[in-house]
């Protein structure tokens, strides 16, 4: 089957798939030099992804990236060469990041006595969206960094990972309503900090 897929990739001119499959085969043969190439070639993209998704907990990034590569090695034999290796690795990374999100959102919730009135103005927000991209990113990082961890994780999972409240609820054992409330509180606090910066 694998040979067939490699032939199809070659026939369709998908040389990247062939390169990826050859690299994976060499790593599985425990070729140390190929393993070094594997790390050199893909660690930057995995690092970038994890760094963006774990903000503001940058202290967790290095260990998470290492765990991703070790998990990738454990499951590398399941890589079939159909999709690019980078995409496959980012899939592994996504699972690891979501493990972290789950662990944070399963903790007892902050501000359980949160005043619902504070959410009333949410729909009328006038947030400046015309900032330069880089400034926008930097400001977002600063605001996320200043928020309680559950709030920043909820926002990252919902908007950067584009997971629905229903999916987040299913993965954390909470109700969809509870996740929506958490998101509303997180957005409200984000907006307040954003406007006060």
């Amino acid at each position, binding site marked *: 089957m694998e040979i067939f897929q490699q032939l199809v990739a070659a026939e369709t001119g998908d040389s990247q798939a062939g390169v990826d499959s050859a690299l994976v085969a060499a790593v599985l043969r425990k070729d140390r030099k190929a393993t070094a190439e594997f790390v050199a070639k893909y660690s930057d993209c995995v690092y*970038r992804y994890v760094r963006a998704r774990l903000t503001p907990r940058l202290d967790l990034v290095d260990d998470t990236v290492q765990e991703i590569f070790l998990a990738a090695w454990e499951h590398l034999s399941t890589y079939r060469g159909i999709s690019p290796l980078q995409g496959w690795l980012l899939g592994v990374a996504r699972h690891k990041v979501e493990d972290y999100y789950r662990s944070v959102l399963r903790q007892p919730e902050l501000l359980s006595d949160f005043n619902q009135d504070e959410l009333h103005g949410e729909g009328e927000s006038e947030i400046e969206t015309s900032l330069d991209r880089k400034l926008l990113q930097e400001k977002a990082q600063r605001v996320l960094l200043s928020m309680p961890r559950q709030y920043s994780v909820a926002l990252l999972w919902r908007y950067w990972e584009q997971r629905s409240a229903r999916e987040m609820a299913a993965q954390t054992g909470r109700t969809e309503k509870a996740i929506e409330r958490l998101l509303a509180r997180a957005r409200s606090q984000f907006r307040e900090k954003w406007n006060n910066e």
Partner: protein
Amino acid sequence: MSSHNPTSDFFENLAADAQPLEDEAKAPPSLKSRIYSALVRLQSSSGPLLGLRECQEAGHGLCVFEQLVRIAPVGERLKAMNPCQVCHARVLAERFDNAPIYWPHCPYVKFQER
């Protein structure tokens, strides 16, 4: 999430706009070194690594220490071991992002990206 909520729209736009800026970050060389060491350790734990001769035949260059191990009059089992485990290049590279190591074909030098 309702698309009519300006705050929600703002977050969706912010997340979309922030994506390309992720491209600027690179994994530190010391992290790459630690990942490589951990991977090779894990590979070794389930049996011998591919021999140095086979690595060379596959088109890879060997560093000076690996060359020495390859030509040394020792058994294939010893040759399949990882000489990086006892090399100071590994120790330096795992601890410093600009490690003072320079010889060709050393994976830890490759991670320095000079």
